[in-house]
């Protein structure tokens, strides 16, 4: 790929053609603040936080969407740029609840982060603030549009990652709002509750219900693992406090950070009281805790018995989608080669 040289804040940068200014800056450790930019999403240049000065351009340039050009000279820290960032932050703060004390996003919130960096504690521009009713109607996440900064990441994720189209911008001007059609609950829309929107929200507007008031972000331990649900094997990160998983996210992996409703929200079984922690063997009509050795032996003995009495074709095997491909392969191998039957099937999906 053709390489392009440019200068950002005095540093010479070489990146591939087609790279945006923001990404080029990132490659040499220059962080340009942004809300709407998200690496997996098409840039929309909506938030105006990433504006920079480019030599020769009259207007400020949205670095998230503008591609580098040979010999370009970019400045990310000029007075004009800082002024623009401050304006954006102050305008957003002028219509934001500022309830960081109890906001789950506290510590991970981009608005908070940049306000802190720019030393803005309150907005000079006072005026009307929205007071939308918080939508708690779906079981997975709450939608608090009072906190929404309308970066549009959720819309882009919904449309161009999951290709659903359950939400979009509605209304105009100050009253612009991200909404489902006619503001109906998401259950009444094509929404599949993948939570992609929640994952990309840079503030606390979209928030998993399960984590509410269960721990601040800095108290949580992150554990990287693979989703146990299906054979795709999505990389997931468990956010754990006091040995309890209270949140699941994903970065990268085979799933490129996307998850389905189960992987993201279906972890309440982990600490559930009904969850089995040892094998059970039925003795005299009653299920009794047993060791794995005992349990496997019981299964093997009974399979032998059945095969002897009725033949191999009396046995059928049904495996689970929760198993990996390899496990499923081994299972059918065992059914065919060890037991000698072709009666093997799979539940196909959870």
């Amino acid at each position, binding site marked *: 790929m053709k390489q392009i040289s440019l200068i950002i804040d005095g540093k010479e940068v070489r990146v591939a053609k087609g790279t945006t200014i923001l990404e080029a800056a990132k490659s040499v450790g220059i962080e340009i603040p942004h809300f709407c930019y998200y690496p997996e999403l098409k*840039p*929309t*240049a*909506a*938030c*105006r*936080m990433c*504006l920079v000065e480019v030599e020769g351009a009259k*207007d*400020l340039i*949205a670095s998230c*969407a*503008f*591609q580098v050009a040979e010999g370009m000279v970019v400045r990310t820290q000029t007075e*004009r740029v800082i*002024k*623009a960032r401050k*304006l*954006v932050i102050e*305008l*957003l703060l*002028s*219509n934001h609840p500022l309830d960081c004390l109890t906001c789950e996003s506290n510590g991970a919130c981009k608005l908070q982060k940049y306000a802190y960096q720019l030393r803005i504690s309150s907005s*000079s*521009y006072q*005026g*009307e603030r929205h007071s939308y009713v918080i939508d708690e109607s779906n079981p997975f996440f709450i939608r608090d549009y009072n906190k929404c*900064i*309308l970066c*549009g990441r959720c819309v882009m994720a919904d449309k161009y990652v999951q290709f659903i189209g359950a939400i*979009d*911008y509605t*209304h*105009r*001007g*100050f*009253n*612009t709002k991200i909404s489902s059609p006619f503001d109906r609950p998401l259950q009444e829309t094509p929404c599949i509750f993948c939570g992609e929107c929640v994952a990309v929200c840079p503030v606390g507007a979209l928030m998993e219900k399960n984590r509410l008031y269960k721990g601040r972000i800095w108290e949580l331990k992150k554990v990287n693992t693979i989703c146990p649900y299906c054979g795709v094997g999505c990389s997931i990160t468990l956010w754990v406090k006091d040995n309890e998983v209270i949140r699941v996210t994903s970065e990268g992996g085979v799933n490129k950070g996307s998850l389905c409703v189960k992987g993201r929200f279906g972890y309440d079984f982990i600490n559930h009281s009904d969850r089995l922690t040892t094998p059970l063997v039925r003795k005299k009509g009653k299920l009794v805790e047993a060791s794995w050795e005992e349990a496997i032996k019981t299964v093997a003995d009974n399979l032998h018995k059945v095969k002897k009495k009725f033949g191999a074709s009396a046995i059928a095997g049904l495996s689970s989608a929760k198993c990996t491909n390899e496990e499923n392969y081994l299972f059918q191998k065992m059914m065919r080669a060890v037991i000698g039957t072709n009666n093997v099937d799979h539940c196909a999906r959870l």
Partner: protein
Amino acid sequence: MRKLKDLAQLKAFQKKAQAKFNSYWKRVRICLTGCRAYGAEDVRDSFLKELKKKKVQNEIEVVETGCHGFCARAPVLVIDPGEIFYQRVTVEDVPSIVEKTLLKDELIDNLLYHNPETGEKIIRASDIPFYRKQTRIVLRNLGQIDPKNISHYLARDGYSAFVKVLTELSPEQVIEEIKQSGLRGRGGAGFPTGLKWELTRKAKGSKKYIICNADEGDPGAFMDRAVLEGDPHSIVEGLLIAGYAIGADEGYIYVRAEYPIAVQHVKIAVKQAEEHGLLGQNILGTGFNFKINIKEGAGAFVCGEETALIASIEGKRGMPRPRPPFPAQSGLWAKPTSINNVETLANIAWIILNGAKKFSSIGTEKSKGTKIFSLAGKVNNTGLVEVPFGITLREIIFDIGGGVLREKKFKAAQMGGPSGGCIPARYLDLPLDYESLVEIGSMVGSGGLIVMDEATCMVEIARFFMDFVQDESCGKCTPCRIGTKRMLEILTRATQGRAEEKDLSLLLELASGVKDTSLCGLGKTAPNPVLSTMQYFEDEYKAHVIDKRCPAFACEALYISPCSDTCPARTEVHGYVALIAEGMFKEALELIKETNPFPAICGRVCHHPCEARCRRGDIDQPVALRALKRFVADRELEWRTSPPSAVKRTKKEKVAIIGSGPAGLAAAHQLVRMGYGVTVFESLPVAGGMLVAGIPNYRLPTEIVQLEIEDIEALGVEIKTNTTIGKDISFDDLFKQGYKAILVAVGATTFKKMNIPGEDLDGVYFGLDFLRRVNFGERVDLGKSVIVIGGGNVAVDSARTARRLGCQVNLLYRRGREEMLAAREEIEYALQEKVGMDFLVVVTEIIGQNGKVVGAKCLRTKLGPMDITGRRQPIPIEGSEFTLKADSVIVAVGQGSDLSFLPSKVGISKRGTIVVDPETFATNYPGVFAAGDVVTGPATVIEAIAAGNKVAIAIDKYLGGTGKIVKERVVKPILVKSEKLVSEKERHVIPTISVEKRIANFKEVELPYSEEMAIEEAKRCLKCHLKE
């Protein structure tokens, strides 16, 4: 209709169409687009009925055309041959039009256009001043053809440009021709059209699109609509040529659904073009394919932005996206796309047929061709005008537009809609083009041009546009979504009197921030109305925010009533008018006297700014406020039994006032009522200053002045006449005599010279000096003919006085009548009295013989651009010298003040006025105050009274008082709520004595109203103070 299969068939068809179009006996062209709102459909119907009745329906053709442009005169129609222009035609007029004009070739006078300036009737449309200065390229067919008839379009060379392109030019040549023409996008940004086409043509890809942006949405802009409605085939042809040039086989017309006639006519045009084989596959056998889709927009303003428009066509929410990539690279469905405005496309065929050279010969260096402006707002001739770039606003508004409605003062023009700015009067002479307008904070934009007069509040205008932007912002980017909301909130607070001073700096900060950071053109230009009004009308913002006052009286929370708020002395005008209407004359007078001790004087000579702002004047004529004041004042003087009794002296301090003019006496009046001892020193033998020395008796009889001054004396004010400070008493002695404060109110009583040769000749007089001598009974021999030089009140007073001395008078003024500073009614009276007036004349020398005046050498002038004072400067025309004979010359070109008596410590400005603190009226000499003409330069009586009131408050505060003016209000003005009580009668003409009775003497010209007249006149008041 048989499809035209090749060029020969088209040419034959066109020839037939031409023959048919050009052979008629009588034709009535009636606007059936914009004029529909004024009943044009009914007018058409009654034409059809009437023609049938007369059995001439086959001989006389009624053509339903598009907009003729002159919307102010709707419904309009033109009768051919002869191009007879009839305006404001009603159904009732139709039978006589048919009977007289169509069948007997007689004109109907009252339907013809009469030039309001000259009264002359104009027959032909093209002779009307509204049309004369226009250059109609885009509007070439509007009003000429039936837009629903392709034959009409063909008859007027329609599709000939397309044929020329197909047969003679390569796509590259077409692009080159458009580039050479200098045509730039008429949607607002002004991008060179040829270049845009070239970029699209050169972009990679086999499929390309051309889009006509017909999403016109600026408040006040309606030219695209008119073109689509009145000449839709020109857009089809423009798209065909553009498609050929850029290599597109498909085009879109994105037209807003709120333009139903436009949508209908465009649909008809596309269908007709398809039926005739001008659209479709293998057009005219040339192998060129082209298809046009019509997309109706749902009315989102932002969809005029090209990327949002593309999103809208694609079925998405109309929201802009960042550029690059530009549509020329990746536009509709990610294919190279050229988006051109309606007006741009309507130019194309003309350029191809007439050549780039001809087109580029019109306009300025960088802006070629013409631009349509839609004239709206407070202008006489609202409508559509097409003018060459480089024309001035003055030409558009005054020559074409016929000036501001009701001869009000022009304040500003809003150009370019919500993206544009307000242009103040000082730029009236700026040649308009893309660059010049941006330089002054506005833009050509879509060409909306809204004229505003002094009753338009600039803060409210900014608020209106910001409200519009908030309604229309797509909400995508932060600055436009929230920034314009915060701006709107500040502006709303300002118009409601709730804004604080820091809001102004916040507003400015926001405006420049939003401009700098927004994503698309809408947000980037949305602050322009705020920025331009803040730049040019900063005082108005300050008035709203600091003084909580709306100078235009548009913001309800910020004024009491236009009349009261306009009065410099803040007299409660609506109050005394209400009292007069109720017959409570004594109470009315008391109310006036709270702020003005001279109602009888002001009732005669006040320049009554209150009447100029009276809202009744927007309906018929303003309430005669001055005459009402005179009525109650005169009645009191006539009926009362005794003068007012003395005010008890409650304060030990004494105040000295130098000068007994209106400023000095008004201050004395307030100070004595506050309980101070007051002495007024007057160097003349009588008190009154300019009231007795400057204003002639026929306007203000000396007895009236004396009566009102006696009242002030009766309150306890001591007036020492024949006492000149600096001669009889030294200035510093006043303090020694125990005066604790000194007010200098000596007025502007010295005259200025013109500094031309001959001013020292015998027979040269100076206005004020001349008036004083006549007023004091001195015999002045002017000879037979007199020249008066000047345009102010002193000049007109001198002229009328000289007339009364039996002279022939010729008043010469270097500017025009419009620019005269003298009161309008005075000018009227002077003309009635046969004072000759010659304008645009400057006197360069007074000629003498044997030391005596015999005449004056003059030069003609013309008016140049406005200077910083907002007045047009006279420019002498070389070689226009001429000489006038005269026995004497009265120079009345300005006044000054004699301040030689003042101690050197008192600060004097370069203009020769005393410098005071604007709040406290204090000079830099402790204890010395100044007010009136001596501070402001020559002004009016009521301004002097207002200054006197204010300085009295300041002196009271200086002497330890509260600064409160004593109010003796007996009765609250009655608030009459019933609308029935508003009289519908016209204004009572102020009675005067006949002209013959005036000339030979100095008798008062005006007579008072009778009681009935006064009550009736007072009932004309609209009671604006009730605001409901």
